[in-house]
């Protein structure tokens, strides 16, 4: 029972309403990226200098953490679909733990930047940096709440509602890939 069970063809994961949210959020984050790139175009040198202050190692670790948590959540969805609820719930807990790890590491990173005197209003780069990471941080917190709800769903007596699990998983993966893009644009881009 290892390969993914065959899915009905052309099946929209989760209920369609989550995709209204995901696509909308992609557009909203698209606007953030556009504003960031627009400002970067105007003041490339300043953005390059400020970017050096960011610790790219922590950013990379955060990306790996979120990728791992995304893997766990995806495996948990598949396990739930294969009616192995115990494994699904266990994998979901691991995914949530990685999410919490991301939250801790991100807070630590902010704390180290703030104590180094690089606050949101020190320059245009840090304005974008703090704004994008904090809106994303809010999304991660909301995602953790959703993972808790999914876990309660899995441990409930009744058979879990697959649509709810897929909706939660879709949201969590969105949070993950938004971070991948933020990591590339803010930390690594030159």
């Amino acid at each position, binding site marked *: 029972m290892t390969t993914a069970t065959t899915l009905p063809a052309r099946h929209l994961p989760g209920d369609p*309403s989550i995709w209204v949210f995901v696509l909308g*959020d992609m557009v*909203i984050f698209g606007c953030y990226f556009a*504003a960031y790139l627009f400002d970067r175009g105007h003041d490339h040198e300043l953005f390059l200098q400020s970017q050096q202050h960011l610790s790219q190692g922590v950013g990379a670790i955060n990306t790996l953490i979120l990728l791992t948590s995304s893997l766990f959540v995806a495996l948990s969805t598949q396990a739930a679909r294969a009616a192995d609820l115990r494994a699904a719930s266990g994998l979901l807990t691991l995914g949530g733990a990685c999410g919490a790890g991301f939250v801790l590491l991100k807070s630590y990173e902010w704390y180290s930047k703030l104590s180094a005197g690089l606050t*949101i209003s020190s320059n245009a780069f840090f*304005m974008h940096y703090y*704004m994008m990471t904090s809106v994303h941080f*809010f999304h991660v917190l909301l995602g953790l709440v959703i993972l808790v709800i999914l876990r309660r769903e899995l441990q409930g007596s009744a058979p879990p509602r697959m649509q709810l699990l897929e909706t939660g998983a879709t949201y969590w993966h969105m949070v993950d890939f938004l971070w991948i893009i933020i990591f590339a644009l803010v930390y690594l881009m030159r």
Partner: protein
Amino acid sequence: MTQLRRNVKLDQLICWWSIPIFYQFFGLIFGYLTKIMGPPIPGPNLTLEGITAFTLGNARHMQIGIVLLAISLGFASMGTGVIVVQMRRMSGPGPVLAYCYLACGAAAALPGCLFCGLLFAVSVFRPDRDPQIIAVLYEMGFVGFIGCLGCFATQYLVFALAIFLDRRAIFPKWLGYMTLWNLVTELIAAPVWIFRSGPYAWNGLISFYLGVLIFVVWIVCLITWLKKAIKNQPLEEFDPACTGTLLV
């Protein structure tokens, strides 16, 4: 006594009609008359002359707009009333979320809307005032108006929660997610209190224009789906004694 209309949903429909009409007034007042939100919204880094030019530019229009605002803002609570009625119909979440929505609706009137109008009314009242005072009133009005986050954030959170928890699907689930966008726009409006230029200032592309765009999309969807919710409210939910006739 002439019997005007006979429809068991008449009171909800009357309240429903107040929402589009109020937002037409809102657009007229803040867009055309006072130009506070009129495209292009004046920015935080205007010079003193710029501020006095904007405020006293068309004093008569500004005053008429604020008079209209002072009168029409009271009728915005009709919209809150009908939404609370529909939220009370939801099974799943009890009345607590509806009452929270009602309280936020009441609280949001002053800081969210009227406060800005009053401040501009004061600065227009005496054009020979010291420009420094007009500048203070100008900024208090703008940042207070656009930076007023809390009451709307709570209202959107409560409304989204009610929609998600509701098993009767009175409002579609995607409207709940759209309300979450609004909550995000409050987040992105937070730096309005810090920045005086750039996309996150109060006239910034993201904090203001993206926020207004999402709000307009949300309010249009809310109005249409609220009408749908009222329309397909089953008749047996109503007490037969209440005929809903308007006897003047």
